[in-house]
């Protein structure tokens, strides 16, 4: 599938649902867990709040803030009419005004993720608008060929970033220093953004954003390395020990890797995402860690990868989404164990007809930094 075919699918869904005008909205605060209908519809990653107005005939208007970013948007989206504004709600309503007079059936996507000041303005001004989140993101449940290619490159960058981590991390360095250096290094490889969670300690409760804590011998470094290449995220989850790992730690890490392997094996077309989560849990439950398979220790065993659509959603027991070829998501057991603390292991996978294909060249394994 390419972007044009996805857009054609969305337009067909608009006709089926009798939507005459689809408004995709995003606030420009790009976040790994926040889907972005503007990117799905237009391919554009905005600086500020932005909107796309799409008609069933394919006519598209892209509204961007700040106004001076309109030319970049036009270069990125040559088929769209681009309007630069400094107030996205006013810009949308100005464009909608002409169409709404004729009783246009309007639907919005992304409204519930907007900040209140923008959302409330639009909600009041468009009282009859329906939600089109399902319409847009159902059509974007699988990745386009370009998004898959970008995910492969993002994965390559993530693995190089991980090698760099092992090369430079040392006792006395702060988590912040290490994270800043890794982010910079991956940017030199082409990653325009990075959801890099990195923390360390002898017994981690979770993976968290870095702070000023200094690394020490015996620390377990947790790294969710998540570069974005051309707007497509990919992630690897890795665990590194400073110094010699205990036998128990090595054994427990093998356990979570085995759990991940079972999850990857379970992921296949026609399988519900919940079953992938069950397969991972089963390995851990068999070893007596059943109570650690639920909150507050674990919320999910993976997730979709944006920045556009985050379908097929979380690898979680309550996700009934059926897997299909060209779906892209993370499988990461990322388990808290009482003996070792939190351990990270995870791979980005692409669903194919044959099953889940990890995009990484090297699977997660407990790494050590010699002191």
């Amino acid at each position, binding site marked *: 599938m390419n972007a044009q075919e996805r857009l054609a699918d969305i337009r067909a869904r608009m006709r089926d649902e009798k939507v005459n005008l689809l408004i995709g909205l995003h606030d420009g605060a790009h976040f790994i867990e926040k889907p972005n209908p503007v990117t799905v519809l237009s391919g554009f990653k905005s*600086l500020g709040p932005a909107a796309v107005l799409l008609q069933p005939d394919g006519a598209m208007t892209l509204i961007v803030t700040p106004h001076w970013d309109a030319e970049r948007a036009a270069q990125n989206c040559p088929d769209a009419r681009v309007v630069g504004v400094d107030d996205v709600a006013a810009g949308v309503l100005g464009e909608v005004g002409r169409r709404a007079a004729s009783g246009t059936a309007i639907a919005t996507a992304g409204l519930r993720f907007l900040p209140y000041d923008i959302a409330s303005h639009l909600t009041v001004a468009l009282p009859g608008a329906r939600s089109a989140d399902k319409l847009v993101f159902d059509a974007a449940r699988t990745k386009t060929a370009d998004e898959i290619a970008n995910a492969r490159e993002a994965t390559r960058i993530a693995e190089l970033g991980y090698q760099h981590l092992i090369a430079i991390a040392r006792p006395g360095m702060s988590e912040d220093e290490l994270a800043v250096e890794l982010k910079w290094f991956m940017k030199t490889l082409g990653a325009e953004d990075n959801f890099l969670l990195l923390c360390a300690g002898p017994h981690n409760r979770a993976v968290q954003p870095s702070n000023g804590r200094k690394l020490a011998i015996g620390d377990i470094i947790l790294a969710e390395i998540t570069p974005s290449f*051309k707007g497509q995220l990919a992630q690897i989850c890795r665990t590194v020990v400073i110094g010699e790992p205990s036998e128990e730690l090595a054994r427990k890490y093998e356990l979570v890797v085995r759990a991940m392997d079972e999850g990857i094996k379970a992921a296949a077309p026609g399988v519900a995402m919940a079953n992938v989560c069950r397969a991972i849990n089963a390995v851990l439950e068999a070893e007596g860690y059943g109570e650690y398979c639920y909150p507050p220790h674990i919320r999910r065993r993976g997730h979709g990868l944006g920045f556009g659509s985050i379908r097929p959603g979380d690898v979680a027991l309550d996700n009934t989404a059926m897997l299909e070829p060209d779906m892209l998501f993370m499988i990461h057991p990322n388990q808290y164990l009482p003996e070792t603390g939190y351990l990270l292991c995870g791979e980005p996978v692409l669903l194919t007809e044959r099953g889940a294909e990890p995009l990484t060249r090297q699977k997660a394994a407990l790494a050590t930094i010699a002191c």
Partner: protein
Amino acid sequence: MLTSHPTLLIGPSDWDAEVMPRDEFTQRIDALWRAFPDAPCAIVYGNPAHHAELAYLTNLVPKLEAAIALLVRDGSHEIHLGGGPNMLGSARPLTWIEDIKPLRGGQAIGRRALEARVSFPGVPLIIGDGYMPTALHQGINEATGEQALDATAQLWTLMRHLSPYEVSAMRESAFALNGAMTAIADANKAGAGVTEAILLGEREANRRGAQDVRTLFSLDGGRTLQPFTTKIEAHVDPLQVYVAARRYNYWTEGFLLLSNNRLPVAAKAKELLLRALAAIKPGARTADVAGLISAASKPYRPHPVTAHAPLSRVGLALEEPPHTKPGTTFEHGDVYSVKVGIANGTEHAIVSTMVQVREGGTDMIWATW
């Protein structure tokens, strides 16, 4: 200036009591209570993209998930952080407030705010609510009976007057900014490609302690600006860049036009900037200075990037107006980013400086000369 917002804030922002003592925050909160003598508490929202108000009162810059500070008049302040109980640890070093809890939704915050009314029966304040997700906003409204009073604009008025600690933090930030600009200029002069030069600048700012660096650059001689989206190996001349660096939570920003040739448009822009600076003094009208830049720019036109905001307040926020708008007049102690952008269709230049207003003129926070 709006730049690409990163999906996660990565960089050092732990609270340092020597840089920003606890008394600083206590005084700021006391000033808020003085402005609202009947308020029992303040609900202060911030997320990784918008958090100037939260950072001003708590030092907390949320890196991953949103946070709400519940500031209570009796001093029993709390921070409610998104992301679950296991995520609280990483936020503890970022703030002086010790009571950090998981954010359980707007209803819980609203109920807690109402509890504070037992001792102080006034109306709770709410700050930064425009940035809240709608569901959170509605939850607070429902719990408080829509009684919370939006005090965001009033807090920004208080934030205008910078303390010596804040100015000192901004000078540290300017040190990082200057390092970035110098590295970019050196790399460009040595023939580096566009993004190589930009990345060397970002790295130098990081080396100087910056917790965040944002950049924009131009591939068309300064006509348009763009963020880093992919590597660009071409060397361009002239190279127009924008850099914002953040240290101790305070931003500084600057525009620089780099060229190996003498550019009349750049000389004109710098001349206008110096004229603008000469006109800035306490009591002078900000609109007059903005008008001076516009009127004296002929035969050039104002550059679209700076035309709407030649003067802006930069500090804890790097955001677009309204909150970063200059006041009606310059006041002693204000810090401004002063930007002059001009263009004529074929030539373009944006230059800027950051200054603090003092008696009789300005003190430089950052400049390229």
